[in-house]
């Protein structure tokens, strides 16, 4: 009788390695997040509207409770806010943009207003919350 040829065994088995690598892969797939957030530095608001300056050098953005916006009294939309504000500020360098948020206005609108104010070339930006804006 012939002896069975001795099978050459692998030096080491790959199976446990693959098990571990799969575990690690699944762990990293579940725990990593690719959500990139950006930061917007803001000026802390005044305690009330009365602490903000009120004269010809102030352009006001009103955030109404129903979601609409007004720049210097004129109605605007989130899309046209930036352009309208630039027009209201004009080329003057001493303009203060004041953002007044009525009860019921949303954070998204506030962010849009702050960004528009930043891009308008105004000298400073102030924010305040008010119970109700006069229409």
């Amino acid at each position, binding site marked *: 009788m012939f002896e069975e040829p001795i099978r050459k065994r692998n030096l080491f088995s790959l199976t446990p390695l*693959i098990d571990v*690598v799969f575990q690690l892969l699944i762990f990293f797939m579940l725990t990593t997040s690719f959500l990139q957030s950006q930061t*917007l530095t803001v000026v802390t608001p005044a305690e009330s509207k009365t602490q903000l300056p009120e004269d010809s050098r102030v352009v006001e953005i009103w955030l109404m409770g129903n979601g609409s916006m007004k720049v210097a009294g004129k109605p605007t939309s989130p899309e046209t806010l930036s352009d309208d504000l630039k027009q209201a500020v004009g080329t003057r360098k001493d303009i203060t943009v004041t953002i007044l948020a009525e009860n*019921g206005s949303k954070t998204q609108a506030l*962010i849009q207003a702050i960004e528009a104010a930043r891009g308008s070339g105004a000298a400073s930006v102030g924010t305040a919350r008010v119970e109700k804006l006069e229409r």
Partner: protein
Amino acid sequence: MIEFDEPTPRRPFETMVPLINVVFLLLIFFLLAGTMQPGEDVDVTLPSGQVDDRDTQQPLTIIVEKDGFVWLGKSVVDPALSGYRIGDYIKTSNAVAVAIKSDAQAPAESVLRLMEELRKAGVKQVTILTEPAG
């Protein structure tokens, strides 16, 4: 002389090596490309924005929920009622910079109230987290 056919060596059903290569590649990708953040219990949809100040420091994060309630670490407060708790929280954590992680639909009033309290508590810099638009 009788000639025997050489026994053809039996190949493994499918070789594992390319699989392992791909898995390793994925592993290294997730290791390098992802950032690990501690999970939060609050579901917040960040407001979208265009401006990025690239403030890379990791300050204290305060979350404002969709209904306007504020999360100070593990506890929830209504900013309209308990401003002193916010001041207290800032004092105990000794923060001078605070990041506000607010829901896009949260009342602006809550965020502004929170910012007022932060200023009263001596916070020097407040940033609002947004996500890139589009």
